[in-house]
């Protein structure tokens, strides 16, 4: 077919050149009139060639069509040959405009078509702090290993590799591996999910980010800010995920109502040690949502998480174990998000406001070395953020987050981890983001970080780029 096409094009080119001879080009070049004539001729030749090319393409397409199957007709009532020939006969626009043919298969049917969606996230940046990062801590909070801030200067952040696909007609699967810049891979998420469970149920199993709260289930590359809010870092070690199962039920109502529950191994923060023979953490959540007219939409939720922690490690800024907690931890979470876009067209302008409230009650034993001492913690945190896309590709955002701890017990030693020193950690950020397309994003964030009594001013410049398959995002 290809060689026929090549020959046909050659023949066409030669034919047109004989029809519109270009010889006078050298001789009469000074003559403006002549030049204009030539230009016109060239244009005509071009259009003619284009027409012929398109005819050739159509011919090819039709040939390819002939080898394809027809619509997998299911009902006997109507035959698939619905392109009643009367169209082409009554076609007043003459032959070059042929009636489009029905087709069945769209893409290539090669085995490669079954490959999962593959994508990678590249992430790096530059960070500036006015205070030394080595002494970073959140006063009054025994945090996990991922609650701290990034490195100074230029740094590569975690790169991410995603594979996702429908496994068969019953299951969907997804794998996300994060690659640490210093080497080593970490399975961030690896789960399977049902596609046709009855009665509006969906079951998920494996390792995955929990559905509690709003921000928690999103991958970091979805965020508009460089870091997660203070309460997410303190209460959920930035992002809570563990090995377990999830059951969701979607109510058969026009207003969105979703109930869900999860049971986890209890190894991940805020759990630890896999209590109750490896089922130490459970949670439940409820989400409602809807639209207000065309321009506004909202979602709100309540979640509760309970865990029994066995020797849960608390870390300092250097990554060393700074204490251990054993006991019960209960977390209550309320969240809401409201989005606006004029007429629901979010391409040029849109706005989003989101806020989450956290309340945690912990009681048990805490200590750096044995013997462990009694500890009771009542801790509260919240954040609110607004992000406004004011023109295509550009957006600005502001965020405020705050923590408050009221700890008691013998484990609360003056100057120790659990001692707030009367300080209330706060952090404010402003971010400007530029997205050339939905696959690339560059952002600059300025923060006033009063997490500790000494205020730190921070600057971060970051790029996040997505290679490969187009991942669709949740609301």
């Amino acid at each position, binding site marked *: 077919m290809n060689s026929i096409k090549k020959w046909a094009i050659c023949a066409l080119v030669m034919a047109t050149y004989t029809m519109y001879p270009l010889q006078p080009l050298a001789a009469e070049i000074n003559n403006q009139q002549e030049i204009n004539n030539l230009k016109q001729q060239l244009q005509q030749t071009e259009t003619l060639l284009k027409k012929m090319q398109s005819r050739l393409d159509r011919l090819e397409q039709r040939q390819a069509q002939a080898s394809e199957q027809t619509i997998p007709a299911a009902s006997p009532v109507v035959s698939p040959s619905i392109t009643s020939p009367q169209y082409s006969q009554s076609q007043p626009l003459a032959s070059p405009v042929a009636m489009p043919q029905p087709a069945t298969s769209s*893409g290539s049917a090669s085995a490669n078509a079954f490959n999962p969606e593959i994508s990678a996230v590249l992430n790096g940046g530059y960070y500036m702090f006015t205070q030394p990062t080595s002494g970073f801590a959140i006063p009054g909070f025994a945090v996990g290993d991922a609650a701290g801030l990034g490195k100074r200067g230029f740094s590569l952040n975690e790169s991410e590799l995603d594979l996702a696909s429908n496994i068969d007609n019953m299951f969907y699967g997804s794998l996300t591996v994060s690659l640490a810049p210093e080497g080593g891979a970490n399975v961030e998420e690896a789960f399977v999910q049902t596609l046709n469970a009855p009665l509006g149920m969906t079951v998920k199993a494996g390792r995955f980010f929990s559905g509690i709260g709003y921000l928690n289930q999103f991958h970091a590359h979805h965020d508009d800010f460089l870091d997660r809010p203070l309460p997410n870092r303190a209460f959920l070690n930035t992002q809570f995920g563990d090995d377990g199962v999830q059951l969701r039920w979607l109510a058969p109502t026009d207003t969105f109502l979703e109930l869900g529950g999860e049971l986890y191994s209890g190894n991940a923060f805020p759990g630890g040690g896999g209590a109750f023979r490896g089922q130490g953490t459970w949670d439940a959540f409820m989400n409602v949502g809807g639209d207000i007219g065309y321009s506004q939409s909202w979602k709100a939720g309540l979640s509760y998480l309970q865990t029994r922690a066995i020797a849960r490690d608390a870390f300092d800024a250097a990554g060393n174990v700074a204490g251990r907690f054993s006991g019960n931890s209960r977390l209550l979470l309320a969240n809401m998000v409201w989005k606006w876009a004029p007429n629901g067209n979010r391409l040029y302008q849109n706005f989003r406001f989101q806020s989450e409230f956290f309340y945690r009650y912990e009681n048990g034993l805490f200590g750096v070395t044995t013997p462990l001492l009694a500890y009771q913690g009542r801790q509260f945190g919240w954040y609110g953020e607004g992000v406004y896309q004011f023109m295509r590709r550009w957006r600005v955002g502001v965020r405020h987050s705050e923590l408050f701890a009221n700890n008691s017990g013998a484990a609360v030693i003056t100057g120790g981890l659990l001692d707030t020193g009367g300080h209330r950690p706060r952090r404010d950020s402003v971010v400007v983001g530029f997205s050339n397309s939905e696959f690339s994003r560059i952002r600059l964030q300025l923060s006033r970080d009063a997490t500790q009594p000494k205020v730190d001013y921070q600057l971060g410049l970051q790029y996040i780029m997505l290679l490969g398959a187009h991942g669709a995002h949740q609301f």
Partner: protein
Amino acid sequence: MKHHLRMTIYALLTGAIMAGFSSPAWASIRVFACEPEWAALATEIGGDNVSIYTATHALQDPHHIQARPSLIARMRRANLVIATGAQLEIGWLPVLLRQSANPKIQPGKVGYLAAANYVQKLNIPNRVDRVMGDIHPSGNPHIQTDPRNIAIVAAVLLQRLQQIDPAHADAYQARYQDFTGRWNAALQRWQQQAMPLRGERVLVYHKGWAYLLRWLGMVESDALEPVPGVPPTTSHLSSLLSKLKQQPVAMIIYAAYQNSRAAEWLAGRADIKAVKLPFTVGGTDAASDLFGLYDDTIHRLLIAAQAK
């Protein structure tokens, strides 16, 4: 006695489930149409036997929709999802399908209809690279701009409705026959009216008009977007302007949901008309149904062509 008790409990449970899971109009087929043109087509063929929810409207860019909770809730109970397909809805439909917890409308099932799978697609790229912008590897998805494609999809839709709701198969058949009769007449009318447009060269905002232009025998000379999905830049517009001096076009066309600024700017300088076309049902006041969509499209094109 025990047996009776068990029977009573079963009856109560069944009753509760029926009450909880059915709506007043539970006999009707729920159609979830991703774009307004498919909602309009479902109305033509389904009539009173279907209740239709339209996920998007004509002033939204169908490439950029959010998987909102309201859409998930509506898809949960749908019997039939009509999408355009060809990756037009790739940024949101996969999430809806996965979150809807509805086995009936998953791809491959009778309840999932991707219209573009049934028509011959244009602009299938030989090479796919994101440098070329937001291109669709399986071809141009904006098939609804050619009314002959609507006729093809109508037949597929009839089959699906008859399969999902055999009780009303005859009613669907009758409505389909009525629709195709009127549609064929309209097609002839449109093609007669559009004769003067044949051969006209046009600038497009987004490469969303390939099917319309092929149908009417018009020629797309260039697009205002430097590559699909990337907004017009000043440098690209000025290069288009200088090209226009060499090779004039009849008009610039853009869709109702697109920003008119770039088109108006260029039209003003090149002294041609920028024409807003409805693109789908509801895009203009006159495009209130499928017939109005093409009536108004051709009407607007003709006015602009005469003005040149």
